[in-house]
């Protein structure tokens, strides 16, 4: 579904990604963990080219990621992205946010888009908030609308960049619950997260990144109980203690 080969990313002199190889299979849930600054967000943002890779190849559903133009727009439409800070459109209601992709990108007629959006808002448990503006919603509600907005494009895969890191602790659960549902339905997901409980429960594969490389990867029961690498052990003992 997503194949990454020899990916490097430099910001000027700063070498952030130093040769990433990763293959995400259809229906797989991959969780990426690792310390701050290790390049997790950068990796995710390279997958839909919000960041321009310096070197390496990326394939989406077998086809090389186009460099730009309409072809890139079309690939992005098939990859849902959920951000740490939601980035809902503040001048649109929750419903309009969810409708925006289908109407603007696909040219779907408004009545059909409205039905689809209401369905998706119901799916994330927010049908009664359809007419609320983002400013009137809690962080957890905003993030659920953002997930619905991404789903409205009927993506082949979803990318999540620390979707719960900006939330108050009591709101984390409702967002993770929606993500678990998605995983259960077979959505291909790449999730950068600090929620080790979520990774352990939902991930098919956990990837530990540090210093711009994948240090170790494997099924969660292996990574969390008997990691091979010292760096993985050190990181996990730090995050699992708190």
């Amino acid at each position, binding site marked *: 579904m997503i194949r990454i080969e020899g990916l490097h990313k430099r910001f000027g002199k700063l070498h952030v990604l130093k040769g990433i190889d990763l293959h995400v299979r259809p229906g797989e849930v991959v969780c990426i963990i690792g310390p701050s600054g290790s390049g997790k967000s950068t990796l995710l943002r390279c997958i*839909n080219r*919000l960041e321009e890779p310096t070197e390496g190849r990326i394939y989406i559903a077998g086809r090389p990621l186009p460099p730009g133009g*309409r072809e890139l*727009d*079309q690939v*992005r*439409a*098939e*990859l*849902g*992205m959920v*951000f740490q*800070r939601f*980035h*809902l*459109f*503040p*001048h649109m209601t929750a419903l309009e946010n969810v409708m*925006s*992709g289908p109407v*603007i*990108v696909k040219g779907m007629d408004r009545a059909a888009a409205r039905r689809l959006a209401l369905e998706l808002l119901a799916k994330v448990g927010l049908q009664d908030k359809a007419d609320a503006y983002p400013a009137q919603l809690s962080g957890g509600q905003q993030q659920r609308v*953002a997930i619905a*907005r*991404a789903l409205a*494009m009927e993506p082949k895969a979803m990318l999540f960049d620390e979707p719960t890191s900006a939330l108050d602790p009591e709101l984390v659960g409702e967002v993770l619950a929606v993500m678990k549902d998605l995983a259960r339905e077979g959505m291909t997901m790449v999730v950068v997260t600090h929620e080790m409980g979520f990774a352990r429960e939902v991930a098919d594969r956990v990837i530990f990144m540090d210093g711009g490389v994948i240090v170790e990867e494997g099924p969660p029961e292996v990574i969390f109980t008997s990691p091979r690498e010292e760096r993985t052990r050190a990181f996990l003992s730090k995050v699992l203690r708190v």
Partner: protein
Amino acid sequence: MPPDFLAQNLPLLLKGAGMTLRLAFLAFVIGLVLGTFVGLARLSPWRPLALLTTAYVEVLRGTPLMVQLLLIVFGIPQALGLQVDEFRAAVVAFGINSSAYVGEIVRAGIQSLDRGQMEAARSLGMSYAQAMRWVILPQALRRVIPPLVNEGVTLLKETSVVAMIALTDLTRSAQLVASRTYRPFPAYLTAAAIYFAMTFTFSRLAALVERRLRVE
């Protein structure tokens, strides 16, 4: 101020105010339309366009309005052997000058938005133009209204330099009244009052519009 002074001279001053208003209004419309494109072009991902418009803005902001006006009303037409209507040429001159300032306001308004807005729109598959049209500009619009009102007020006041090219705007009319009556004080005081009435009305109206937009 003696009533007969007003009775005799107000019609002329109001006529001048009419020209000032027409001039400022038409120039502002040109400035808004042209300036929006200037602001968008400065942010264009296509470098040559961005650099060209940056130069355009820098030149217009780095030279006196008076000189720009003289150049457009007298200089260019003579060099090209054209006959131009001075009022129209002045409208164009003020419009172009204003477009540089409007362009900067639009650019700043867009840049003040969170980068994540553009990224969220693009990752849904919107093109740059679609993201601008449906996500960025509607939000920027709310933020640019106050500085645009400022620009409109400034523009209206600055049109008074057309008195130098013998167009009988409000300032020119006040000069005529002053020299005809030998009473500069009431002449210019009345002119000031009329200018203020115009700018004040404009900014009140704009504040009303802004409040309307904010409710949504």
